[in-house]
């Protein structure tokens, strides 16, 4: 941060003359800028009229460059503008950058001007239908959260099947002629397009059928390449990592349709490759047999797909879910079950050492569990729960329904854990409800006077494992201290002198092999471990997070937790409540089948890999996401498309054995242009992130950084070799759909998980676990935070979108201080936190409207915004609540709201999110591009 050019405060005297205009008098549309082509939107009528649109008529003055008329242009770098030298110094992009993105300035509409021109993002079947993208952009920022929305009517485009056909595969050739290269130096990245995920591809041969068969929505499955190269040589030529980012069991948002459930008499599978029947099969022999789309073997089609013997009518195959929907859930028949299905079993393992009691963690946990008892899935009253608490001894609780009072049983032998009353420690939730409630009411105060600072986590885990062993289940660990007692305890190994040295990676690797072995043992017994870590001090997250990593769990991290702060308590209890109430799949395995010729090279995520294509998951955690890297072994010349089928066999909460099947079809191409034109920078970035996390944990941090940067250099180099003529060496060209890749890669390098600097290893380890586990949308926001200007709102911004649970979001801004004005209020969403940045010159009326306090009186740090009492605050609250709610649903994470003021100590933290600026030893975006160009020119 030291190298950040100083943000020179702008003296009041240099304010434009309009600043002295009486704000109340101005009835201009909120946030409009004179001269901007923004008027095409209905003006926002001030209902209360109490905020001053101070920015409204900013007349050009020497201190201010003319207001930007173009989103892609640099916004007036107002910060530091009082000293024009600084401003010019910071201005890294050439002036004529208005003609960004090769289309010339005309093609780029103004910042707030109606629906924006979509980026030239090529998706097969999507060409020539810009209206699709436009529709998305009308609600910027929410396309992603709600991919299903887009899918409900993507077929607008396919009303005309003839067009359609020509639009699918043939389009690629069409696209090939218009490959547009973007010179990255000419324009800053257009981050608005990060949220525009590709629409699902519809393979040509399926779109002629009367019902549309489309690939799964982006959130379930997305590929780095939406056109697969024909052979490995072509893939190597493109240098693009080929992989799939998969969340087959993902959380379903409120506006998304549920996955169709189907229970055919027989689950039809291919006899050879055992693939499940899916929409992309082809019928042969007048529809009496089907050809597997994965191995091309012809199988018999059971009669019930043709003739319904009950109604004595021919079956309409367009109404059968498994033949039409690429995401489907089969109710498994008897042969898929071994013994009775596992009930929901939760063992709470709670640290009751001094730190836990003091921070109020135990009391909050007890209260939350008590209030969530009704939300724990409890089908057929089979759910069981149990409790173990520990400090330097283990405490078991006999919760037998016949007792009147819970009994506490203390075991002090940590080396050879003895389980007292093994039958009564894990009890049926319904039968023992009264005594469980009595226990939870007491738990908060039970250890109140403790002075014990020891924490025997390994012994407690061993005990929980012994109790759950016979049935499996879930262990929820609540840990506030480094496990410092008994066998396999951990030492405080944090050593700041190791930061930024090659030895730093040892801090990120597990200290003790026992934790990994224990996790594998749990995985074998179908036990999932989730860890909640609360601490003010070093807790060795690196070691403890191995437990969830190999058992399909999650890490929840609350550094400096203090339940007396309402924000901390709310965050923890909301997440714990959701953790207990969310849908999970038990005793699961995930099998991935791929077309012949493809093999799975690497698999990344939280699980234990049983075979190259078989993932063992004691619980399928909907918050988790898995990435596969795929090799092309054989020539795919004879194939028109390749298939991926992920099948999760699991026990659902209602005790049914089910199979969730996600089938994805990707066309094959022999043309390098098409490979590039169909590459997806988001999936590449997320796959690379997950690979780099794995590399950090097994090798060195520097290796991971090299992996990240070389991914980008190789792709740029390959593109240069294939498509750039000589004489363009001074430019850095990339195909337009990949133009976001460098900025995502650079943001990844600057992510707290990978950047250089003095970062405590606990924080780094947690960041690694977030990147490894989180679903694609969450990862993208974590890599490249979402920044919104909230002092200028559009007419709709912040209002709920009718008939959805969403809110109109403001447009995203590039993460650079140059894009921020000195009088602005900004909201940054990095998926873990929501940060409200208050500039010193923030409009006092807006600040007052939002916080009901003057600027000086607003405390920085974690905040709860006051209940809104005006329109502006309501809108901002809507935005914040929408972000928090969607994060809670998608990744079980309720972001804190932080206020950071310009002169705060936290300022550096906020600025560290500005990935396009220079940060300590990390390069700014233009510098990074120069570095890339250098590397590309050396290597290619």
């Amino acid at each position, binding site marked *: 941060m030291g190298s950040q050019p100083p943000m020179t405060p702008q003296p009041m005297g240099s304010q434009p003359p309009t600043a002295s205009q009486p704000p109340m008098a101005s009835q201009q549309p909120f946030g409009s800028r004179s001269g901007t082509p923004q008027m095409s939107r209905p003006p926002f009528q001030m209902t209360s009229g109490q905020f001053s649109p101070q920015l409204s008529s900013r007349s050009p003055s020497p201190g201010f460059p003319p207001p930007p008329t173009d989103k892609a242009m640099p916004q007036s770098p107002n910060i530091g503008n009082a000293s024009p030298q600084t401003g010019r110094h910071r201005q890294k992009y050439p002036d004529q950058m208005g003609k960004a993105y090769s289309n010339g300035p005309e093609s780029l509409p103004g910042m707030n001007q109606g629906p924006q021109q979509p980026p030239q993002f090529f998706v097969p079947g999507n060409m020539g239908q810009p209206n699709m993208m436009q529709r998305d952009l009308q609600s910027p920022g929410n396309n992603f959260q709600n991919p299903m929305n887009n899918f409900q009517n993507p077929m607008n485009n396919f009303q005309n099947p003839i067009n359609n056909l020509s639009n699918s595969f043939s389009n690629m050739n069409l696209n090939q002629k218009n490959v547009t290269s973007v010179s990255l130096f000419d324009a800053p990245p257009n981050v608005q397009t990060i949220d525009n995920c590709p629409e699902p591809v519809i393979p040509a041969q399926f779109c002629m059928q009367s019902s549309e068969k489309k690939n799964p929505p982006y959130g379930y499955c997305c590929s780095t390449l939406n056109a697969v190269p024909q052979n490995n040589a072509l893939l190597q030529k493109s240098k693009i990592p080929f992989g799939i980012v998969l969340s087959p069991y993902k959380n379903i948002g409120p506006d998304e349709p549920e996955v169709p459930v189907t229970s055919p008499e027989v689950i039809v599978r291919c006899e050879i490759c055992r693939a499940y029947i899916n929409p992309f099969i082809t019928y042969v022999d007048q529809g009496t047999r089907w050809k597997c789309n994965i191995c091309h073997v012809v199988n018999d089609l059971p009669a019930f797909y043709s003739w319904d013997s009950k109604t004595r009518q021919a079956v309409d195959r367009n109404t059968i879910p498994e033949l039409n929907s690429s995401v489907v859930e089969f109710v498994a028949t008897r042969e898929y079950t071994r013994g009775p299905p596992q009930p929901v079993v939760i063992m709470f393992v709670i640290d009751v050492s001094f730190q836990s009691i003091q921070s109020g963690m135990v009391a909050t946990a007890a209260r939350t569990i008590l209030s969530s008892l009704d939300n724990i899935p409890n089908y057929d009253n089979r759910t069981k729960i149990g409790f173990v608490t520990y400090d330097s001894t283990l405490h078991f609780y006999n919760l037998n329904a016949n007792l009147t009072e819970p009994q506490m049983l203390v075991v002090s032998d940590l080396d050879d854990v003895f389980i007292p009353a093994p039958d009564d420690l894990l009890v049926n939730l319904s039968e023992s409800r009264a005594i469980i409630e009595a226990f939870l009411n007491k738990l908060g105060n039970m250890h109140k006077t403790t002075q014990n600072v020891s924490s025997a986590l390994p012994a407690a885990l061993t005990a929980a494992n012994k109790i759950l062993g016979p049935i499996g289940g879930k262990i929820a660990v609540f840990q506030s201290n480094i496990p410092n007692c008994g066998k396999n305890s951990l030492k405080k190994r944090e050593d700041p002198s190791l930061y930024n040295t090659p030895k730093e990676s040892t801090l990120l690797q597990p200290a003790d092999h026992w934790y990994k072995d224990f996790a594998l043992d749990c995985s074998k017994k179908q036990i999932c471990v989730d860890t909640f870590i609360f601490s003010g001090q070093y807790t060795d997250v690196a070691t403890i997070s191995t437990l969830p990593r190999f058992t399909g769990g999650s890490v929840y991290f609350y550094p400096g937790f203090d339940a007396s702060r309402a924000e901390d308590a709310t965050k923890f209890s909301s997440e714990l409540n959701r953790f207990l109430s969310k849908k999970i799949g038990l005793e699961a395995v995930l099998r991935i089948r791929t077309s012949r010729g493809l093999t799975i090279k690497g698999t990344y995520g939280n699980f234990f*890999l049983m*075979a*190259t294509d078989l993932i063992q998951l004691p619980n399928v955690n909907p918050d988790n996401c898995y990435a596969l890297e795929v090799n092309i072994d054989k020539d795919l010349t004879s194939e028109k498309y390749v298939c991926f089928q992920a099948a999760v066999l699991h026990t659902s909460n209602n005790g049914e054995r089910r199979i969730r099947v996600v089938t994805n079809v990707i066309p094959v191409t022999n043309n390098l242009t098409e490979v590039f034109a169909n590459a997806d920078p988001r999936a590449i970035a997320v796959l690379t992130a997950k690979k780099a996390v794995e590399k950090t944990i097994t090798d060195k941090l520097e290796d991971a950084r090299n992996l990240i940067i070389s991914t980008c250099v190789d792709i740029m180099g390959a593109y240069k070799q294939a498509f750039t003529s000589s004489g363009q060496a001074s430019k850095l060209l990339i195909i337009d759909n990949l133009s976001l890749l460098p900025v995502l890669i650079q943001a990844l390098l600057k992510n707290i998980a990978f950047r250089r600097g003095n970062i405590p290893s606990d924080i780094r380890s947690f960041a690694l676990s977030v990147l490894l586990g989180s679903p694609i949308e969450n990862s993208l926001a974590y890599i490249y935070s979402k920044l919104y200007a909230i002092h200028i709102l559009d007419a709709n911004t912040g209002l709920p979108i009718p008939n959805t649970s969403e809110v109109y979001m403001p447009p995203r801004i590039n993460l650079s201080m140059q894009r921020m004005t000195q009088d602005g209020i900004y909201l940054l969403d990095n998926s873990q936190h929501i940060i409200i940045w208050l500039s010193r010159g923030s409009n006092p009326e807006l600040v007052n409207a939002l916080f009901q306090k003057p600027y000086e009186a607003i405390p920085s740090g974690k905040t709860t915004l006051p209940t809104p009492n005006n329109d502006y605050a309501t809108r901002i609250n809507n935005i914040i609540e929408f972000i928090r709610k969607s994060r809670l649903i998608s990744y079980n994470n309720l972001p804190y709201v932080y206020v950071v003021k310009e002169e705060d100590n936290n300022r550096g933290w906020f600025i560290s999110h500005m990935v396009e600026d220079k940060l300590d030893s990390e390069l700014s975006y233009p510098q990074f591009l120069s570095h890339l160009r250098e590397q590309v020119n050396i290597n290619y």
Partner: protein
Amino acid sequence: MGGEALLFLFAAIVSALLLFIMVYFIIMFSDLECDYINPIDLCTKLNQFVLPNYIAHAVLTVLFLITGKWLTLLFNLPLLGYNIKRYLDNKHMFDATEIFRTLPYDKKESFIKLVFFFVSFFLYLYGMVMAILHNKSLYA
């Protein structure tokens, strides 16, 4: 039969054993690839042979050092060095969570070791025969 012949006989027997262990490793690896065995079982089975393997080879090398068989010592030193490095890096054991990532490397390593023990087996046999015939080693 002289001491040298006995030494080479012992060495030949040991390298034959090591050879069998390597064959076993390779068979197990291909079983894993075909999904006949799960990684945890594989690692517990293989890991019990890793240290005996290293120790046996180290003992042989030390014996050659003591008896001053410089050529055979030189032949064995690279592998000894490699084994020590693996041990110090704590990478000598198979890890069930990483086995699929390290499998290509592990297979290659086992195969090279197999060839090495195969060659050394015949080398020691030759040494033994020579020692018996001439009652003095060719490798003195």
